């Protein structure tokens, strides 16, 4: 039984350490991610926009296949989990190999073997007695660590670079882990705040007050330069600090972060509208003012007019759900319900400020639902400005940053350093120089040539020909 389990474990290890598996998984993840760029994802798309784009049926299909949330779908997460396992296993395997490589000492190599190296050079002639220290000095000047073994100089540098790619792979796992920590233990919310609001956060022992917010334009221009919000942190009824946040400059306090994330007019939440009321026969009843989710009474008629919703840019989906296409005041519409004194609803309708929309709506409604007791027109609207704050708590942040740091270090080490080794064999009538670089880096040839030239220039070899002449 134990042998059986061992065999399974070995098979699993072989399976997860294969680079082919890595290539297949990366390709599948890339393919799904590509799909995720083509289909808008629900984290930044409203349901109504999906329906407007794909229709109800299409939207349901997408949802059933989890294509509106690919990156949270079970199949994507499954692939990611497999990939993480694969990455971890490969890292383990590579790390073992790197460790063996690290431990493998540079050893003596016979000169005739050195001559067969790709980077190899021999200087023949009678060699001075002080050749060895001179050559060692040259190599040391080039950053090599030098030792001597059986009259052979063994020099090397950057042996540690072998671990660069391991560091990179481990850091990737760390970054994924940090993201997971944020996802599981973090907290994120979006708050729409008006002047003077005090924001309280669950689990936080402080509150934040919105003092004021404003936007600045570029000089002589309509272009917005920045949006700013002044926040004050209040702890135990004491003001701790005040900071003006702007886009790209959040407030960070006790692990919480406050970002300037939106700015605008709060049409949908707090619009204040002016409505003109008419009886069905055309008698004007006057103009009235009310806010969203509230309304006003018309004493002369003994009715209450409730303002249900305000949409700055009215549109309808295929299945006749009203929504606001944008947050700009393009096609403002207000949803109104009229109740009598007993609380019985007399009618409900949309009222528009664009006359052609109003006409279209009234004629359509008249055809479908018949006469209504009142007619309503939207004649004016205002809304308070708001600042939108993204608030997060991000416990994974240090882990992710740590991972980021070593992603950079690991990748740079792997890409720009390669372990170099030089053997110099000195005998009485010959110096053999041979070099080796990991991954057969081409640019090593240049360094090798330079080294050889410098060693030749030491003039530690006297040529036998010249001796003969003398």
């Amino acid at each position: 039984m134990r042998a059986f389990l061992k065999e399974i474990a070995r098979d699993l290890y072989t399976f997860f350490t294969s680079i082919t598996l890595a290539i297949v998984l990366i390709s599948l993840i890339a393919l799904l991610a590509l799909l995720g760029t083509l289909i808008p994802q629900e984290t930044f798309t409203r349901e109504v926009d999906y329906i407007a784009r794909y229709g109800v049926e299409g939207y349901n299909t997408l949802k059933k296949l989890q294509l509106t949330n690919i990156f949270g779908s079970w199949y994507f997460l499954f692939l990611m989990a497999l990939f993480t396992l694969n990455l971890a296993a490969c890292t383990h395997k590579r790390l073992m190999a790197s460790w063996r490589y690290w431990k493998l000492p540079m050893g003596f190599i016979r000169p005739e073997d050195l001559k067969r190296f790709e980077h190899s050079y021999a200087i023949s002639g009678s060699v001075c007695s002080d050749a060895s220290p001179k050559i060692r000095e040259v190599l040391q000047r080039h950053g090599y660590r030098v030792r001597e073994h059986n009259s052979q100089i063994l020099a090397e540098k950057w042996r540690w670079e072998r671990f660069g790619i391991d560091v990179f792979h481990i850091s990737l796992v760390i970054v994924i882990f940090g993201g997971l920590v944020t996802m599981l233990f973090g907290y994120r919310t979006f708050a729409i705040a008006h002047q003077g609001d005090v924001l309280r956060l669950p689990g936080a022992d402080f509150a934040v007050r919105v003092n004021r917010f404003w936007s600045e334009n570029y000089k002589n221009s309509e272009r917005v330069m920045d949006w700013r919000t002044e926040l004050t942190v209040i702890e135990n009824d004491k003001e701790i600090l005040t900071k003006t946040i702007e886009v790209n400059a959040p407030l960070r306090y006790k692990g919480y972060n406050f970002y300037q994330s939106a700015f605008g007019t709060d049409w949908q939440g707090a619009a204040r509208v002016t409505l003109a009321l008419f009886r069905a026969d055309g008698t004007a009843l006057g103009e009235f003012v009310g806010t969203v989710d509230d309304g006003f009474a018309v004493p002369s008629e003994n009715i209450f007019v409730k303002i249900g919703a305000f949409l700055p840019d009215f549109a309808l989906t295929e299945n006749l759900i009203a929504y606001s296409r944008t947050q700009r005041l393009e096609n403002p519409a207000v949803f109104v319900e009229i109740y009598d004194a007993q609380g019985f609803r007399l009618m409900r309708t949309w009222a528009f400020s664009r006359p052609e929309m109003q006409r279209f709506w009234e004629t359509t409604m008249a055809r479908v639902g018949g006469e209504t007791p009142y007619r309503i027109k939207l004649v004016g609207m205002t809304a308070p400005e708001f600042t939108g704050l993204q608030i997060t708590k991000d416990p994974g942040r240090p882990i992710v940053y740590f991972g980021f740091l070593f992603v950079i270090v690991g990748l740079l080490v792997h890409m720009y350093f390669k372990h170099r080794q030089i053997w110099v064999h000195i005998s009485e009538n010959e110096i053999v120089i041979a070099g080796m670089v990991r991954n057969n880096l081409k640019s090593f040839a240049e360094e090798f040539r330079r080294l050889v030239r410098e060693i030749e220039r030491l003039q530690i070899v006297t040529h036998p020909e010249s001796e003969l002449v003398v």
Partner: protein
Amino acid sequence: MRYLSVLFFYLSTVSYFVTFVFYLLYVVLGSSQRERRLGETLGIVAAGVSEGLSQIAWGVWATRALLVSIAISTIGVIARAIELGNASQWVKIVLLPLSTTYETLTFFSWLIPLIYFVMERKFQIKQVGVFVTGAAFVMLSVAASPSLAPSAPTGVPASLQSYWLTIHVLFMVIGIAFFTSGFGATLVYLWRRYEKKLFLLFGALLGALATIIFIVVPLFGTLQFEKMLASGALLAALCAGFGWLLLFVHREGQPVAWERLENIEEMVYRCNALGFPFYAIGGLVFGGIWAEQAWSRYWGWDPKETAMLVTALVYAVYLHARLTWGARDPGWRGGLVAWLSVLGYLAVLYAWIGINYFVASLHSFV
């Protein structure tokens, strides 16, 4: 002309076109020149026979013209940086003009040839210059049309007012510039490997891409289950078909002459391997840090982010495939490594330009 930079970019457009022509002449006439030189040394052709145009050392002139073009672009980029700084009242130290389509295009037309110039000095494969200068010329031409890329400098929007604009975008741009040189080298490599059969392969690739864009994607977009299934099957069939074609060409082809391929393959690998750290670090790390500062999260599966990830993944596959299968594989695997480099560059183009036409994204300013 209201802006000095615009003038210089117009000049460099002309200059890059001239450079492009020089490189083209080098490729077309240079080969006969090389043959003639070979003939002279062998004594077949009498030395000193004038052949007019092909007498000129086009390669040398092309490199000189390239340097002139880069110099003109450099002035343009510097002028643009100052104009942008003035327009945005020096809110933050906005070092690099990289905030609009016009600026990124003109910046690219400076950086891509610059990086190519460095690689050309190292590898001396001037055929790549045709693609690189051609690309620079096309970019500048697009930038010159006001409807596609308005040239007047405007204040930098609030979301871009950060030092990370410079760091993040600079890294991405350097990465893309290396990939562009790498892609140019891949084209030369593929030409040397397949010669006239490359037309067949590229024709098939273009056909497959067109089928994907015009049939597979819309079929999937109908969102009816059967049609989505059919679109998936079609995609698989296309991949299989191209794979089969590749296998066929490799089996029928001449044995590969390594001495013609080795150097250019090395250039492809160097460019991609140098570009990858810039692209991956600039996108994943610096992009992540900036996104956390501006949008409150490192990673949000925003379409542009995701497309960048896809690109980085394709190049990661390229690097791993080259590592495991080796560049010297004479069979289809060695060829596949080169095709992965092509796929990588297609992904670059998608992440850089294509994505802007598909989905609204937080990155919609470039």
